[in-house]
């Protein structure tokens, strides 16, 4: 009985625990609850991924109503993989949360933080697992609202402005998605994703469908911070509490990329998206701009969280570039990079949380001399940075390898060159940190900084270690990513 209800429980357990976390009122109690819930969600997502890989997609009828009348949960290789990313990162980041949150957030607001965290987890998992276009919107609202709360809990007063800015941009994005879904409903009379896909086939000339496509595309691009719609992201990541930055950077944009994959490939179908609509070329141009502008701006940042945020804009560019190829290799690269980038950014932001915990700030100046005083933390930053650049033996190399491969397959050798050039820009901004940490000495009080507590180091190193592990043993991740890519393109299962 439990086994057959796992898809529902994946979302319902965090959903039910959020109000409980609010009622507990003590930060520590809420943290224990949140940690248990995260672990349960992770276990469920591992189980779901295994089931999907062994026996094919799972369909679950909410309320016992068959689709398209009721809401369906539909799990295939693509979203099972994303579920694993979200719940895995959620669990590991939560391990570090207690120490960091106790330092950064006032006592009476800690349980609010955990409640918002659980709601955000609920929203992200709900968006990912559902097979219903309107249900995506509902859970998008949950995750967005809770994200604004998480950001506004930052200690800096500018966190409020950042949250408000994101609120306006995010609401516009969500409204566009809603208008788009509304237009699709108007043309087909259904909201179920698989049913929509079937009924949209003969409608590719309908202007209502085309306009709906445009609205969904712009709305989702806003949510995933595709250049030039990324303006909300740097401030949001920079001023949020460290734990929130780590969780959001590693999961929120990934889920938005998943939604884009789902709409472009499953709902509209690759023929419509890339032949009727000129999507491929638009995405490719924006992606390359994102890589270069994002990396270039990152070089000039003084706040390291902002630096990593701009680097995220660039990394999202790599994912979108993979999507724009619309081939199995390109999509494999994009889906791989979802996972790999989550590992890198999760690990790096947790390391930043450790730096903030000890030095009270994350500007480049705070990094001076940390190579001596916080060797383990800085070593984690270095490995994470190497992975961002794409050095062999790290996950960053694997995803760029497939991306270059995908470009060459299509004969776009100049895109392959641009990808490599983008990596060089990453070398510069990572070097900035290394230089400060290892070749400059700290002054005054900063010289007596101690290594971060284990409760922060261990989670950071789990993610950083995963960067290396999955960089060497690529069979698991590439295997799943390839299956997922093939199923999105409708080739094989």
């Amino acid at each position: 009985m439990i086994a057959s209800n796992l898809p529902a429980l994946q979302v319902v357990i965090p959903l039910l625990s959020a109000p409980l976390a609010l009622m507990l009122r003590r930060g520590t109690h809420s943290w224990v609850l949140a940690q248990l819930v995260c672990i349960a969600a992770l276990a469920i997502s591992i189980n779901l991924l295994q089931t999907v890989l062994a026996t094919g997609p799972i369909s679950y009828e909410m309320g016992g109503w068959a689709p398209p009348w009721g809401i369906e949960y539909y799990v295939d290789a693509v979203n099972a993989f994303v579920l694993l990313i979200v719940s895995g990162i959620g669990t590991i980041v939560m391990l570090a949360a207690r120490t960091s949150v106790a330092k950064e957030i006032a006592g009476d607001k800690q349980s609010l933080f955990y409640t918002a965290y659980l709601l955000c987890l609920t929203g992200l998992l709900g968006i990912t697992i559902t097979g219903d276009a309107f249900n995506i919107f509902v859970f998008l609202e949950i995750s967005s609202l809770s994200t604004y709360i998480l950001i506004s809990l930052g200690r800096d007063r500018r966190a409020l402005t950042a949250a408000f800015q994101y609120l306006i941009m995010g609401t516009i994005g969500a409204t566009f998605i809603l208008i788009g879904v509304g237009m699709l409903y108007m043309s087909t009379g259904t909201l179920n994703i698989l049913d929509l896909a079937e009924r949209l086939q003969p409608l590719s000339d309908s202007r209502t469908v085309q306009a709906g496509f445009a609205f969904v595309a712009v709305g989702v691009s806003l949510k995933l911070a595709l250049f030039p719609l990324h303006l909300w992201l740097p401030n949001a990541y920079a001023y949020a509490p460290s734990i929130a930055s780590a969780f959001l950077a590693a999961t929120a944009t990934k889920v938005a990329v998943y939604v884009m994959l789902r709409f472009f490939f499953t709902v509209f179908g690759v023929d419509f998206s890339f032949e009727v609509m000129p999507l491929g070329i638009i995405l490719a141009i924006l992606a390359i701009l994102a890589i270069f502008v994002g990396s270039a701006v990152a070089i000039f940042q003084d706040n390291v969280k902002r630096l990593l945020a701009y680097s995220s804009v660039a990394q999202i560019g790599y994912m979108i570039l993979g999507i724009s190829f619309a081939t199995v290799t390109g999509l494999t690269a994009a889906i791989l990079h979802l996972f790999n980038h989550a590992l890198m950014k999760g690990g790096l932001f947790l390391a930043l949380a450790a730096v903030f915990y000890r030095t009270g700030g994350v500007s480049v100046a705070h990094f001076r001399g940390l190579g001596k005083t916080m060797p383990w933390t800085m070593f984690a930053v270095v490995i994470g940075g190497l992975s961002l650049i794409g050095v062999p033996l790290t996950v960053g190399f694997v995803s760029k390898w497939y991306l270059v491969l995908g470009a060459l397959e299509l004969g776009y050798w100049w895109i392959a060159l641009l990808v490599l050039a983008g990596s060089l820009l990453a070398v510069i901004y990572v070097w900035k940190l290394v230089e400060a940490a290892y070749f400059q000495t700290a002054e005054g009080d900063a010289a007596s900084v101690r290594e971060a507590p284990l409760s922060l180091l261990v989670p950071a190193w789990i993610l950083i270690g995963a960067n290396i592990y999955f960089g060497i043993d690529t069979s698991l991740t590439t295997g799943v990513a390839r299956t997922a890519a093939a199923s999105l393109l409708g080739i094989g299962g």
Partner: protein
Amino acid sequence: MLAATALSVVFMRDLFTIVMLFGIYSLLSAGFFVDMDAVDVALTEAAVGAGVTTMLMLGTLALTSRKEKAHRKPASMLPLAVVTITGLVLIYGTLDMPYLGDPEAPVHQHVAPRYIEQSYDEIGLPNIVTSVLASYRGFDTLGEVVVIFTAGLGVLTLLGLSGDSPHRARPAAMAHHLVLRVITRALIPLILIYALYIQFHGDYGPGGGFQAGVIFGAAIILYTLIFGLTKAERVIAPLFLRYMMGAGVLIFAGTGVLALLLGGNFLDYDYLAHDPLHGQHYGILAVEFGVGVTVTAVIISIFFNFTGRGDQPKEEER
């Protein structure tokens, strides 16, 4: 009229007038929805848009100022361009739209017929909107309740937890107005009864948890306006509201889990009783109650937090 109201909002500088115009806008939309035979939506729009939102905006005005600050920044062209393009795409999209009320439109051909023809046999309620909302697409509604819960959480986070604010000792705002006091005393019980009617009659007529929650909240807001926050918090303690907010979500999701434990899928009310129709009925009553509880708590809590911030009585508007 809708367009005229919206335009005058844009050109108006007096924020108080703008708030009033927003209220009118909502009331007009509600009328529009009635015209389209969407009575449930109209009821919600009237209660939320014209009623509670206006109150909250007035509360904000009392905290800030009534006049918009004059700023002479050159108007940027970017927003105008974005709005124009969006509008053009919308118009482009409507070109192939089915005509309003066309029975051949896909919307009326695919999913809807089953809702209309079979929902009475499958669920046993005359109000199809309630059937779709609470059962066929009950999971969406659960999501919406969580959205409202999240909004309440956001207000708690930003405006501080109720209960630990330093100042609370304000004189009862308008208790010295005898006429207001008497009329309010007479009105509040009626409003509460009306809220309960909307809550439990939603299965048969327009209404349900969302609307009832708002109306219930409005009654408490009225009480607060007249008798002051201190007295209102004695009626409903802020801490109680915090539990109540979560309790609604728990009732709704708990109903779903109960169905799951009894052998069905999540939210499959058929399993709640021996007879599926009874099960559906219990399930819908329970989840609507959950919706009502959360909505009431969130609305009151938002209002308490807003008024709790102000030092001045802000009743001059009325």
